[in-house]
């Protein structure tokens, strides 16, 4: 019986120490959950390569109970947003998140997923997935090494430990609100506007030269 399961303040006789555990329901519940958080199998960009390396035998996610990456959102618990989130990809990611059953967690892996990263100013990139999803753990780095990712996942497990059945959102009364799926919005540059754009520039230039001439 693992020591982490025992609640403090109870004396167990020494002869029963390895057979009996006194614990709280919360602890038992969290203990079960923290060692069975299955990530969803999808990768978005270069961080995905590190994620794959973490799942492979050298670092081995299975040591943390994240046995298998599930390709179906219905069987996954953790969403590892690994990489740059483009505006075109956001609706799909939010839909996948909505399809995951509770309890569900989101880990933003790498600079791009948590804050936009080097592409923050890009016309096609979402600067941080936390604008659309409730992110639980942010892992900085570009990309985070497998060990940094494991550290982030351990942080997630610590967070699970602190949750209580009374206050978790999936046991509250009423339906949980769905996260609204964003619509693919207008880009900062619309190619269709280019002739117009050119015309406007020319007009502005003409006005400027006129002013200078007069």
């Amino acid at each position, binding site marked *: 019986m693992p020591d982490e399961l025992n609640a403090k303040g109870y004396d167990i006789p020494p002869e029963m120490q390895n057979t009996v555990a006194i614990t709280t329901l919360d602890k038992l519940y969290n203990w079960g959950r923290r060692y069975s958080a299955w990530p969803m199998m999808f990768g978005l960009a270069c961080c995905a390569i590190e994620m794959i390396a973490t799942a492979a*035998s*050298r*670092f*081995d996610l299975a*040591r943390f109970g994240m046995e298998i990456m599930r390709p179906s959102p219905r069987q996954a618990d953790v969403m590892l947003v690994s990489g740059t989130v483009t505006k075109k990809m956001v609706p799909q990611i939010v839909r996948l998140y909505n399809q995951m059953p509770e309890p569900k967690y989101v880990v*933003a892996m790498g*600079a791009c997923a*948590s*804050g*936009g*990263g*080097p592409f*923050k100013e890009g016309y096609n990139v979402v600067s*941080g997935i*936390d604008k659309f999803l409730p*992110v*639980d*753990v*942010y*892992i*900085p*780095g*570009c990309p*985070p*090494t497998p*060990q*940094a990712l*494991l*550290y*982030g996942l*351990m*942080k997630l497990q610590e*967070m699970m430990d602190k949750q209580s059945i009374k206050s978790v959102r999936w046991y509250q009364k009423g339906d949980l609100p769905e996260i609204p799926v964003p619509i693919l919005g207008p880009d900062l540059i619309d190619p269709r506007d280019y002739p117009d754009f050119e015309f406007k520039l020319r007009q502005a230039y003409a006005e400027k030269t006129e002013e200078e001439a007069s």
Partner: protein
Amino acid sequence: MYGKGILKGLGVTLKHFVETYVDDFRRGRKRYGTREGVEYRSSKDVSGLFTVQYPEEQLIIPEEFRFVPFLVYDEGENGEREIRCTSCGICAKVCPPQCIWIHRSEDPKTGRPVPEPAEFYIDIDVCMNCGLCAEFCPFDAIIMDHDFELAVYDRHSNNIYDKEKLLKPASYYQKIRPRNYAAQEKIRQEKAAKKAARARK
């Protein structure tokens, strides 16, 4: 014959699998948890597969490994911090994703600039760990760190590093990058000696 390649590949996998147990048996407990064990298992002449038991043991970080940058300060005689950064702003200019902000400090009386940063911010959610800032810094004041355990629950309050969070002593720099530190220190001393000689003339 079809399928020969698959059998060959599976054979290699099986060989590795068996070798892992043979190696475990031969080397015993020393193989795990110790620095020598990790060193041996990451060397090229290791046989078998292995897993880095991360929280208990870590891969040995090579000296040139880079994660987010930090600012170096020298410890003065009375324990005061002599920040190497002169807020010249070269790092902020070369930074490809533009994640460095510097506020220069001014002398309150004369209003003239003082070579020391008043504020120094790095947004590590934008930083791409390229190391150009460290490469270009003429004062060896900004160095890439080895610490990768940076995951947080809230990025808005934690992930924009200010001066206090970025400053680390030169002894730490010496610890993580001994060879780089020795080379840079040699150049710095030569420069200082030249400067002193010029001043004497």
